[in-house]
């Protein structure tokens, strides 16, 4: 086919115009909600791990049954720093889903909620929220998130059968914990005393982040000082330094699984449930894996607080549940449907689904939901620490600053490429960079 120059120019112009139209069409589509007609479709973004996906699907199914005019489309993304990055990109380019599921606390603060999310203070479920939880999803007194799932604890998950067989008791000091681990090693060389799973890099942080309740017990002002850059509240100084020391200690002591550098969190949970390993510093939230893969073994696993060097300070660190948020790009019918969806998750029916599909990892943060009577045994371990007043929310719920490189630094410390001292210095630098980027006073 031959085209005259004029024709060719016209064709090119038309092609460019078509592309431009398509582009503008795309960017205006999907996020705004001026949808006419009775059927509304909203999108819901959550993390792509198996337990979360299962729960989200069940929630959507029940919701669509109750609200037949609303369709919820499920989107997933990876968790961890990669997910954090995607989340920020989607929010700043205004391409975020209508409803999204994400951490509360410092990670929530880093999303700039005032401009990126819808204020939900007026919703009916707000009155049921636990006051600690309300704080970690609020900015300037306005509530932006509704809890999904239970709170969880970061401690040492342990196989009760192994503890019984060897006649071990729950350690209350770090030295006792190491002594127990050595006994496990001598009793049966095929049983791993302490699991580490750097195939999922975030799991490297437990011995530091899960130690925060112990720090807080020794120095209740530590979190405030840390945020305001005062009084030497740094990771190179005690008490916070002990977490780095503990991380550096266990691999050279020969107490860790051989494949710690490549094992994943799910593999480690299976090893713990099957008794090929005895202890695992981890969040109780990971028990969802056991709930799904080996439900008959879930009561073989208990949890105790990461022991402090001094028994009087040993206490359990708690994580508030993740929350559901609505992005500020949502309006009209879609906003209404999104609010209904969030409220549904905190309704009696929503709570029932949460109980059925997500393994309870600790108490709920809203009085709207309560644990079922047959909740796994380890939730009672968690409750005991709370009742004894030996528990504290994790640092990320008391300070907006969390350095992004902690997991990498701790892997280097654990595998011996960096000393505990240097690792702590590096992390303090990382914290400084984050504080400056957030524009916090005193840095």
């Amino acid at each position, binding site marked *: 086919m031959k085209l005259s120059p004029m024709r060719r120019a016209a064709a090119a112009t038309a092609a460019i115009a078509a592309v431009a139209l398509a582009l503008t069409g795309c960017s205006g589509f999907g996020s705004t909600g001026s949808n006419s007609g009775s059927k509304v479709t909203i999108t819901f973004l959550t993390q792509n791990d198996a337990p979360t996906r299962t729960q989200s699907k069940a929630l959507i199914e029940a919701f669509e049954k109750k609200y037949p005019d609303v369709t919820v489309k499920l989107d997933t993304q990876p968790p961890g720093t*990669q997910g954090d990055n995607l989340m920020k990109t989607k929010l700043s380019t205004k391409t975020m889903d209508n409803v999204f599921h994400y951490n509360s606390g410092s990670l929530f603060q880093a999303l700039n909620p005032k401009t990126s999310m819808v204020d939900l203070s007026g919703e009916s479920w707000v009155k049921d929220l636990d006051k600690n939880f309300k704080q970690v999803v609020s900015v300037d007194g306005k509530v932006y998130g509704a809890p999904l799932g239970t709170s969880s604890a970061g401690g040492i998950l342990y196989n009760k059968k192994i503890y019984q067989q060897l006649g071990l008791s729950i350690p209350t000091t770090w030295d006792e914990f190491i002594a127990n681990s050595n006994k496990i090693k001598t009793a049966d060389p095929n049983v791993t005393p302490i699991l580490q799973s750097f195939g999922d*890099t975030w799991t490297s942080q437990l011995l530091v982040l899960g130690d925060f309740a112990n720090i807080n017990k020794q120095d209740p002002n530590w979190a405030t000082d840390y945020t305001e850059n005062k009084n030497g509240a740094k990771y190179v100084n005690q008490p916070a330094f002990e977490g780095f020391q503990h991380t550096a200690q266990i691999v050279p002591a020969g107490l860790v699984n051989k494949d710690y550098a490549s094992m994943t969190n799910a593999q480690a949970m299976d090893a713990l449930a099957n008794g090929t390993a005895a202890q695992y510093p981890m969040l109780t939230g990971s028990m969802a894996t056991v709930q799904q893969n080996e439900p008959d073994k879930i009561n073989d696993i208990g949890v105790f607080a990461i022991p402090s060097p001094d028994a009087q300070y040993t206490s359990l660190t708690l994580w508030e549940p993740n929350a559901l948020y609505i992005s500020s790009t949502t309006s009209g019918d879609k906003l209404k449907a999104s609010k209904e969806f969030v409220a549904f998750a905190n309704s009696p029916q929503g709570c029932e689904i949460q109980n059925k599909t997500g393994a309870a990892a600790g108490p709920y943060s809203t009085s709207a939901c309560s644990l079922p009577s047959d909740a796994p045994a380890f939730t009672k371990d968690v409750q005991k620490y709370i009742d004894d007043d030996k528990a504290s929310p994790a640092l990320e719920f008391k300070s907006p600053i969390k350095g992004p490189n902690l997991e*990498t630094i701790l892997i280097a410390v654990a595998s011996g490429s960096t000393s505990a001292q240097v690792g702590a210095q590096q992390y303090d630098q990382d914290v400084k960079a984050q504080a400056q980027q957030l524009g916090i006073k005193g840095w």
Partner: protein
Amino acid sequence: MTTASVTIDPAAPTRAPRKTKSDRRGMRSPYPSWFYIPAGVLYLIFFALPTFSSFYFALTRWTLFSQTFIGFGNFVQFFQTPALTQGFVNTFIYGFVTSAAKVVLGLALALLLTGATFGRGYLRAVVFFPVLVSTVGVGLTFKALLDPFHGVVNQVLGFFHLPQPGWYTDPHLALLTVAGVDIWKGVGIATLIFMAGIVAIPSEYFEAARVDGAGSWNVFRNITLPLVRPAMATVIILSLIGGLRSFDLIWAMTNGGPGFSSDVIASVIYKQYQAGFFGLSTAGNVILFLVVTAIMLPVQWLLNRREADL
């Protein structure tokens, strides 16, 4: 050796060039200057503008919506980044190891594949094939193959009772493992360039050398090697620049880990972007730009001078 004869004719095209406007102006292009506009506009918008604005943004602490001017604060902070020194050292190791290996292996393969080998066409395709595969795909494939416990490579090694290293989980090995995969993937391009260089050597030289009784080694040492120097310069420059700013393969295989042991400058900077430290990472990119320029200018000058001396 090769049967390809040299067909370059010294008496080049003979058709008299038409007198055009640009011809009268002196010389040069047969195209009118406005032909440059589309490319120029694209270059300005997508290259020049971001490059120059990055010099400014490197001096600020910025988010997508606001910015604060902080002078050289970002540069000071960038040099205090955890494991930055290691990142620099790793970048150089990675750049030089991959570049050197590509030169040596590329030349060897090119000699083999320009010679009269059995199945030459097939082997050429095999050597070049990895270049065509997506880097991330290659990274993930090798990650599976080299898995320390379930990977094919270590299972085979285990079968023969050989040591089974943690290819990308051992901090001392991770960087070299990735470099090895990079070489496997990139050697095809180097081979291709060397083959072009070897084929372009006039066959008279080889014939004359044979008549004088030179052996294969002498022919290689005194004819092929000096005369493929332009090709070698291209390979060195391309692979060194590629190696110094490599990122995708490292990210796909190790994310810079374990710890910081396979971090290069590009992955350090990427992590800072990921953490939302936009000003800091812009400063890092400015530094990377200066470092790569500082290395490549002398290298290019040196290689080009040698070429002229020949």
